[in-house]
């Protein structure tokens, strides 16, 4: 089936949001599908708690819906704005709770079917958990910077806008975060890399 060119999935983010503000249900579905997976990944990595992350994603999208009729065309990038809102909500939650070591196996997605063997899949899962636990140990600003840069794959300029700091400060946070991560993971390196020698 061929889709018409003005079908919401062909529109850019801002045009889609404008369609949403006019009452287009498909635009709402497309915006949800477009943004929620990345917001979810970011919130989970920031909070290490799936339920809390879901609340943050829902609240972030709710604020987008409220904002839709007021959105200035050609203004801020929607994705950047969403990460900014989600960041504030995550940091609020991190500050409110006295957080322990809360990453669990349930927070990590199951390996896909393309995994070569069950053993390799478990090893990969183990490596993911190690990374997430290490990220969880970083100070919140370093965690935010490293997740946005290396997991969400955003540029330093965009991260600077999201975090409300300069680009040099972002670079410094990322460098410190990587040093800290490397130090934390070094303790488990032999264990995690042993499958690579085989």
């Amino acid at each position, binding site marked *: 089936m061929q889709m018409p060119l003005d079908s919401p999935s062909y529109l850019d983010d801002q045009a889609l949001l404008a369609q*949403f503000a006019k009452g287009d249900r498909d635009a*709402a579905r497309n915006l949800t599908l477009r943004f*929620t*997976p990345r917001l*979810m990944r970011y919130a*989970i990595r920031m909070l290490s708690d799936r339920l809390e992350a879901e609340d943050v994603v829902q609240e972030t999208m709710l604020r987008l819906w409220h904002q839709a009729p007021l959105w200035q065309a050609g203004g801020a990038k929607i994705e950047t704005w969403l990460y900014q809102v989600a960041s504030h909500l995550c940091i609020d939650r991190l500050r409110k709770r006295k957080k322990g070591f809360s990453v669990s196996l349930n927070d990590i997605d199951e390996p896909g079917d393309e995994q070569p063997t069950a053993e390799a899949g478990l090893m990969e899962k183990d490596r993911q958990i190690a990374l997430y636990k290490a990220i969880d140990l970083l100070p919140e600003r370093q965690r935010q910077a490293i997740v946005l840069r290396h*997991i969400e794959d955003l540029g330093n300029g965009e991260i600077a806008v999201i975090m409300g700091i300069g680009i040099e400060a972002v670079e410094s946070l990322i460098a410190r975060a990587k040093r800290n991560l490397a130090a934390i*993971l070094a303790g488990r390196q032999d264990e995690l890399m042993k499958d690579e020698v085989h």
Partner: protein
Amino acid sequence: MRKANLDDFFAQARSQPPEVSFDLQSRILSDAFLMQDQWARKAAPINSSNLWFDVAKHFFAELGGAMSISSVLAAALSGMWVGFAPPAALADVFPAFLTTQKSDIFDLLPSDNEFQ
């Protein structure tokens, strides 16, 4: 740990975005549709030929709709009915309220005077 290893970790994390549950998507879409419905109601044009009808409709809707209005009307009619045709048991009580009768004066603390 080598930088290359750390980059492998990140690449692995990027390659597996978490699934968004159906429940979460439903909640988000429900918020979205609710918002669109609210905008649609606010934006509904008021037809000038039916202006009073539209104003009355909004007024009654603000008061709580048909159920609320019918309850208020029923209470008002009951009050009027009791006023015009009071039950026999209340027949002696009503004149006392409706006419100006001299009130009896009671001394609430009669023993007070004994000490004076």
